[in-house]
């Protein structure tokens, strides 16, 4: 259980440090490049240490390139979003996005829709509606305040 708590602290600090970096006026694209470069460097070391060579098939490489691009765009969007909105909402959105592969799995692998998963999807939609409407009202309030 200690490791779970360490994981939660680590991920929580990751989002908090992203906000600190934004307050430090770090450029979002430069920061994304830096994060991915460090992580690629670490993974390359791990690959040589544990596998001994960097060899793969074309389908695996194509999949990795496509989804790696998605990950970089996601982190860039998150880093940009915390400049204009709340870090908590951005981080929640990063975690709610787990619903997307779950939905794709249902369609691609014919997985069954369990009751818990159905409830989770309904709650995710309710949450998104509340967050979007809440943000709209916040913006309206700010505009009124400025006027």
């Amino acid at each position: 259980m200690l490791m779970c708590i360490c994981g939660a602290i680590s991920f929580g600090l990751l989002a908090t440090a992203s906000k600190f970096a934004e307050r430090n006026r770090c450029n979002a694209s430069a920061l994304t490049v830096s994060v991915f470069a460090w992580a690629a460097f670490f993974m390359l070391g791990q690959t040589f240490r544990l596998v001994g060579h960097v060899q793969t098939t074309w389908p695996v490489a194509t999949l990795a390139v496509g989804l790696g691009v998605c990950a970089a765009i996601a982190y860039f969007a998150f880093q940009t979003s915390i400049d204009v909105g709340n870090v908590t909402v951005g981080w929640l959105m990063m975690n709610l996005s787990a619903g997307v592969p779950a939905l794709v799995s249902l369609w691609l692998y014919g997985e069954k829709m369990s009751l818990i998963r159905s409830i989770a999807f309904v709650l995710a939609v309710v949450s998104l509606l509340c967050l979007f409407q809440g943000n709209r009202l916040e913006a309206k309030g700010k505009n009124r305040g400025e006027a």
Partner: protein
Amino acid sequence: MWFVLMLVILLTNGMSSFGLKVLQAWGLPSSSKYVYLTIWYAAGFACIGAPMLGKGLKLGLKEIRWGAILAALSIGGQLAMASALQQGLPGNVVFPVTLGGSILIVALASRVLFAEKMHPLSWAGMAVGCVAVVLLSVS
């Protein structure tokens, strides 16, 4: 702008983690994930780095420093989660505690360290969203 960014995060971040499931479905050995993740990170680096280079933007020392901290925290979180799973804790305990816990930490930090304010409806959305994340990771 904010709505578009949230939709981009929702779609791209969700899909980015789908690859490990595909590798599992293809029946590849677990060692293949190391090469996969190396290419995954390198592709992300090139995707944002190439247009940045085209615009003549340079990587500053503060971005390199913050990038190292963020990468270490990300890898640290992944390793902690992997160790918890290796120690025999079931996934339906590890994922909700780790992901739900991280959202609570961020919510606390945003209030205490950054004094961020949210509309009550956004707080309600956050609470419902936390439950959705926990249920998604349990299922």
